[in-house]
């Protein structure tokens, strides 16, 4: 049982390792067109193209490896942006329940009035498709989850005696929020962070798949998947492999999140 419970941790570690070491591990450049005679080569464990080549003759393994890096960078950026905004807004909303709180919650309602992917699509269409804009869009739609969570946690913390005590010692609201409430909410934040990362990676891939995400020639799994679709029958690895990568990473983060939740 113990080993099963750590699968998520191992999965995540593997992913992070691959993503960081990607450039060293990759046998080729992800952008280099090796040869136009080597188009859509099937995976061949004897090498040199272990996972074959794509439709214009680039080494597929290298693209997948760089894609891992891409996913990690994108996922982390989304989590960083949405977490920092969502956590601060959430604590504020939980702390000032009179005026600021309701305003923040109404804004959250608006963000949540549409399913997140739909909302992200609209935002990306507004800003124009690119990696940067899809990060912004996905970050934006990920904020409400943090706000709601942190608001609830803050409400709980605020009712505890230490807050009242701190107040009577003359601690400023800011100090209370940052040095007392925030640390107590950390476990919640960490779990949501892990889950948020998996969601972000999935959303970015979905946007990429709908051609609203990363643009060519950036190796991004969702884009690679949608590019490979035309070759689904003739070169199925162009579809199966990027999808498996996404599934693996998302699954690992979800498992990891569950594990953290149980521990905390």
């Amino acid at each position, binding site marked *: 049982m113990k080993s099963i419970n750590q699968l998520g941790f191992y999965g995540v570690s593997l992913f992070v390792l691959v993503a960081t070491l990607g450039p060293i591990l990759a046998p080729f450049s992800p*952008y*280099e*067109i090796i040869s*136009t*005679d080597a*188009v*859509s080569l099937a995976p061949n464990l004897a090498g040199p193209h272990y996972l074959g080549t794509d*439709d*214009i*003759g680039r080494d597929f393994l290298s693209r997948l490896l760089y894609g891992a890096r891409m996913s990690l960078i994108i996922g982390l950026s989304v989590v960083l942006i949405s977490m920092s905004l969502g956590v601060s807004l959430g604590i504020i909303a939980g702390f000032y329940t009179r005026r600021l709180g309701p305003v923040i919650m109404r804004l959250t309602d608006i963000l949540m009035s549409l399913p997140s992917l739909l909302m992200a699509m609209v935002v990306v269409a507004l800003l*124009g498709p690119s990696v940067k804009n899809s990060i912004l869009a996905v970050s934006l739609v990920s904020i409400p989850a943090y706000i709601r969570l942190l608001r609830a946690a803050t409400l709980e913390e605020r009712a505890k005696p230490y807050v009242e005590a701190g107040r009577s010692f003359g601690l400023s609201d800011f100090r209370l929020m940052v040095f007392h409430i925030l640390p107590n909410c950390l476990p919640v934040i960490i779990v949501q962070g892990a889950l948020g990362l998996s969601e972000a990676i999935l959303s970015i891939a979905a946007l990429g798949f709908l051609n609203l995400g990363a*643009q*060519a*020639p950036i190796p991004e799994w969702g884009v690679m998947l949608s*590019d490979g*679709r*035309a*070759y*689904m*029958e*003739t*070169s199925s690895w162009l579809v199966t492999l990027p999808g498996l990568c996404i599934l693996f990473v998302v699954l690992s983060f979800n498992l990891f999140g569950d594990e953290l939740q149980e521990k905390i």
Partner: protein
Amino acid sequence: MKNLQSLLAVLIFVGCQPKSQNSKESIFAYCSVGSPSIFNPQLASDGPSFNASSQPLYNRLLSFKKGTTELVPSLAESWTVSSDQKTYIFKLSKGVKFHSGFGFKPTRELQAQDVVFTFNRMLKKDHAYHSVNGGGYEYFKSMEMDKIIKSVKALSPDEVEFQLTKPEAPFLANLAMDFASILSAEYGDYLVKNNKRERMDFDPIGTGPFTFKSYSKDSLIRYEANKNYFKTPPKVNKLVFAITPDPSVRLQKLKKQECHLITEPHPSDLTQIMKNPSLKLKQTSGMNVGYLAFNTKHKDLKKKALREALSLALNRKAYIKAIYLGNATLAKNPIPPNLWSYREETPEWEYSPSKSKKMLLDLGYKPGDLKLSLWTLPVSRPYNPSGKKMGEMMQADFKKVGVDIRLQTYDWPTYLEKARKGEHDLIQLGWSGDNGDPDNFLGVLLSCAGVRAGSNSARWCHKKFDEQILKAKTITDQNQRTVFYKEAQKIFFEEKPWVPLVHSTIFRGINTKVKAYRINPLGTEDLSGVSLSSGK
């Protein structure tokens, strides 16, 4: 487990081969690429709309002989041209009946007033229908028909006269184009009476081989055979357009007999179609060109020598191999070889990265000095099935000679809009001819008027070139015109406002049951003569 699997298989298999509701009925299913935007070709400018409206539902005064660009009589059975080439008189065919439907029942056959109605709608600003549904008439205007036609007059019920402002060689060919489809004046009156004018372009009434039945957006269009068709009535009872944008899905549907005919199969699937015994691959060399245009207004790209240097860097053969999978020919002229006046003498465009590098150095560009944006075609077209992939390959080619390319793209309408404004440096585009006249390529895509209209994406206005094509337009003798067009192509090669890339082969996949289908080199789909053999 095994049992369960076979049970499931049986369950799903039952009814998998749907029986026709009536065994005598034959339904022809065509997998098309996109939804039509409107059912009146006057207001359309896109292939899907023409395929769904002008071809099955309407007729023109003249038509192109099936599978060619030769002009033959259609709604007009004959015509005469005055000696000054400014008056055309058409005699209409007899017994042409309009469809009935949407509460409308025609009381008379086609008459000259229908032709007058049709053209005056586009021509006259005070016409009751002129501004209905936006009233853009882009095609009509981009062919300059609004400037060429002075008046349209009914001389008698079966004779109609066109007065032109000046002689115009491609005029007859223009009348055979989709936008010149003939509408019913009586239907127009009927809609005015019922206060539903805007339905004119969505509830179509024409004279064509099929009648409109129903349309559900992005999924199906249904037609029925027009039994009163004035030419040979269609051999199938019903026609269905299954709108299927994804090429791999189209193929899968073809294999599952959910379609009898598919357009533009993906190049990588062609061998599969050929190998499948129940399918057949149809092909013809398309009347098209795919090109990479230089924005000649750009501070660097206005230099002819730089354009030449860049053209040397592109390994166009590799694109044909990887993107068209060999199903295209290298282009050297802006017009395709199956169009008259094609200039055989033009030398092939050279590929030499080393020469390109040297030229760039001579021009003072060290590696990394030149940074350009390259726009990649956002939609799949016969002349370029994957702009994105080609962009990635071009980027790699330019990298080799030290030019940094930033790939960029927008959704299709935005792409065209920004290209019209000239925001690009290099841009992938292409053109499929619509009337078999060289002016349709050279005039639209490379003339000074084209710069103003926005269709000349090289933004290249060359005086001598422009003179040639303007002169060629005012004479009707093809041999004389050829001389001017060849000269124009020579200037094009010297000046290099584009790198012409390919002329692609057009493909269709059909079920072997399909009989008498011919690909139209002009790109639109004419299904009036197809039939289905009853055998398996």
